[in-house]
């Protein structure tokens, strides 16, 4: 049995859309950040699927770098979240509102 590549691409688009949706509707900072990770995961699936299509490894390499960047972002992001929590004692993004939007 074989599966067309576009199935993988649709799954990837779905994950990406879920991530964007989470970014828009979630209110907890950590969950919002997790939604961003979900977006990146969706993108990674696209890269791997396309890499399989072309039979090249560039997509794999890109995913590898995305992971490294995600790890770096996670470290910095969580540190920022901790420092926000220290000054504001809340994790709700709407209560982090000293600056008017």
């Amino acid at each position, binding site marked *: 049995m074989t599966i067309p590549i576009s199935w993988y691409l649709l799954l990837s688009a779905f994950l990406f859309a879920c991530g964007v949706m989470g970014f828009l509707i979630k209110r907890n900072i950590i*969950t919002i950040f*997790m939604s961003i990770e979900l977006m990146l995961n969706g993108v990674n699936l696209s890269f791997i699927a396309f890499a399989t299509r072309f039979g090249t490894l560039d997509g794999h390499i890109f995913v590898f*770098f995305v992971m490294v960047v995600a790890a770096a972002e996670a470290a910095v992001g969580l540190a920022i979240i901790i420092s926000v929590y220290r000054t504001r004692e809340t994790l709700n993004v709407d209560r982090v509102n000293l600056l008017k939007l």
Partner: protein
Amino acid sequence: MHIFLFLLFGLLCAGGAINLLIQRKPINSALSLIVVMGSLALIYLLLGAEFVAVVQVIIYAGAIMVLFIFVIMLLNAGEEEHTKGSKVAKIIGIPGLITGFIIGVSVLLQHGPQEKRIHIGELYGSASDVGMMLFTKYLLAFELTSVLVLIAIMGAVVLARRSHSS
């Protein structure tokens, strides 16, 4: 077999993603994200990307998400409050997202590549292949990640450490 595995893990993935949105407690969202990442690793295996699949488990599930859970535990993040939220996000964002998603899906379906089909066991992304490419064609990018990680480490330390006594 292949199609069954794809459907199984694909549904797990999609279910995890939806569960992330529905759950109110951050820890549950984190767990569903781990489910998504785990099933993605298995989907990568279906696509033949062996090395990436393993690295996905080690880095995403084994390091990044542990960090998330660690912070959730540390800050004792409880149930999400219900607040109004940004109106701009809801008025512009969600319709924009939906239209974007529809456009994206239609483009992927119409013009997306469909010709190539994948056979199970067609492994080609082995660690040595990826490593070879990483240290030849993408050498500079690889070296550059060290600067990136250095910045991240330094930043995490600077932001999260307690103030100096002075």
